């Protein structure tokens, strides 16, 4: 059994940037990928240092805009990026509903990160948001390619248009936020954390857009994406992992809710879309225990962990859990928040010391 993306090399920052630049152009992704990620991380650290330096001075001119800068492209059924430019930030709504949904979803994501966490776009430096729609033929997927969003139309039977659920758009863009922050390795537990963080902020983007409190939200990921004849309501459930679908074509939702049912597998990059059910459920438990708007206290704690600088790329569930306890204490002191966090991780069987 072979697995993907497992033990690719990691380049320390000791490798000179010009060497990394050349490696990043390498045709072999196993070499180019880590080099590129290292360069991205380096750029981020330089930005952080610059921001720290600028903050000291009274120069607000470098502050990124509070408005998103969105551009939508149309691949017209090909798999070439970015495709034909069809919509700019200030254009009137397009004829194509898919283009308008992509534009709105990018906006909803920008809005949550700005209003709830004062984050200016994916990189916190005003990164323009680019999306390509109608990628491929009956293409059953959406992804962030490191630089932009890509949406398929779905096959129309199992999956519909991937721009339909706003939480899917938020999920994918959050992979960009993770790339610019903790840069969690996409394998095993760190990969499941990467996936979970995308589900957490994906659902928060939906809840914020709909103005739903924790007890009003459906806590589903990908509701509205499955075709009308599929037996299932969504792709994942944070409230009840493992119950989102059970269908002759798709199989059954394989997600566990607790460590007792943790799935050891080399498939799916070591089960990144499977075991994410465990931290997903922990977030749900914290948010519903605290009540009110989930993006406020629960979301703030998770956001602080993701962006705080202590979360390592190779972090395991217990590392993440421990950092959420620390973040809750730092932000809210000894109160309901820290108790809710400790209780949630205990309930899913992850030690948070």
């Amino acid at each position, binding site marked *: 059994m*072979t*697995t*993907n*993306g*497992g033990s*690719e090399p990691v380049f320390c920052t000791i490798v000179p940037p010009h060497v990394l630049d050349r490696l990043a152009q390498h045709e*072999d*992704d*196993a070499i180019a*990928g*880590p080099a590129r990620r290292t360069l991205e991380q380096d750029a981020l650290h330089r930005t952080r240092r610059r921001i720290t330096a600028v903050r000291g001075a009274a120069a607000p001119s470098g502050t990124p805009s509070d408005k998103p800068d969105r551009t939508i492209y149309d691949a017209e059924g090909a*798999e070439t*990026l970015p495709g034909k430019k069809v919509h700019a930030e200030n254009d009137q709504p397009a004829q194509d509903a898919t283009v308008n949904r992509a534009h709105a979803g990018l906006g909803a994501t920008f809005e949550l990160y700005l209003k709830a966490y004062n984050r200016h776009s994916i990189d916190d430096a005003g990164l323009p948001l680019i999306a390509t729609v109608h990628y491929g*033929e009956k293409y*059953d*997927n*959406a*992804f*962030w*390619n*490191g630089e932009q969003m*890509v949406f398929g139309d779905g096959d129309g039977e199992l*999956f519909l248009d*991937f721009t339909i659920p706003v939480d*899917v758009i938020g*999920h*994918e863009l959050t*992979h960009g936020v*993770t790339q610019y922050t903790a840069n969690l390795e*996409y394998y095993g537990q760190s990969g499941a954390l*990467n*996936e979970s963080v*995308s589900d957490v902020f994906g659902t928060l983007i939906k809840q914020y857009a709909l103005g739903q409190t924790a007890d009003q939200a459906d806590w589903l990921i*990908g509701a509205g994406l499955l075709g009308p004849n599929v037996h299932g309501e969504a*792709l994942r459930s944070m409230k009840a992992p493992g119950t989102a679908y059970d269908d002759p074509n*798709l*199989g059954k939702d394989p997600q566990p809710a607790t460590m007792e049912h943790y799935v050891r597998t080399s*498939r*799916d*990059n070591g089960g*990144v*879309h*499977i075991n994410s059910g465990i931290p997903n459920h922990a977030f749900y438990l914290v948010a519903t225990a605290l009540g009110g708007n989930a993006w406020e206290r629960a979301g703030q704690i998770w956001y602080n962990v993701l962006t705080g600088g202590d979360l390592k790329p190779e972090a395991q569930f217990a590392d993440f859990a421990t950092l959420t306890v620390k973040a809750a204490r730092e932000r809210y002191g000894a109160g309901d928040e820290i108790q809710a966090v400790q209780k949630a991780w205990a309930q899913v069987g992850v030690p948070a010391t």
Partner: protein
Amino acid sequence: MRIQVRRTGGFAGIERRAEVDTSGRPDAAEWQALAERVLASGRGTPPAGVPDGFRYEITVDGRTVYAADPRLTEEQRQLVSRVLKEGA
């Protein structure tokens, strides 16, 4: 010639497999030529890919090459989509 494709990952994280046996097919020569080009240009280890991007294992008569979206070659793209569409 047996051509198998396994697609993993993706937003849904749901695996798909399909295979085509070219023997006896009227278009066998075309399939074989395409499969051989994919083998020749393919890599023996999985590329890193991107989060939620599809990853592919293409096995032709026991020899496996790997690929990942969004960086498939035109031949890989053709073969993968034909096998997933027409294969069983």
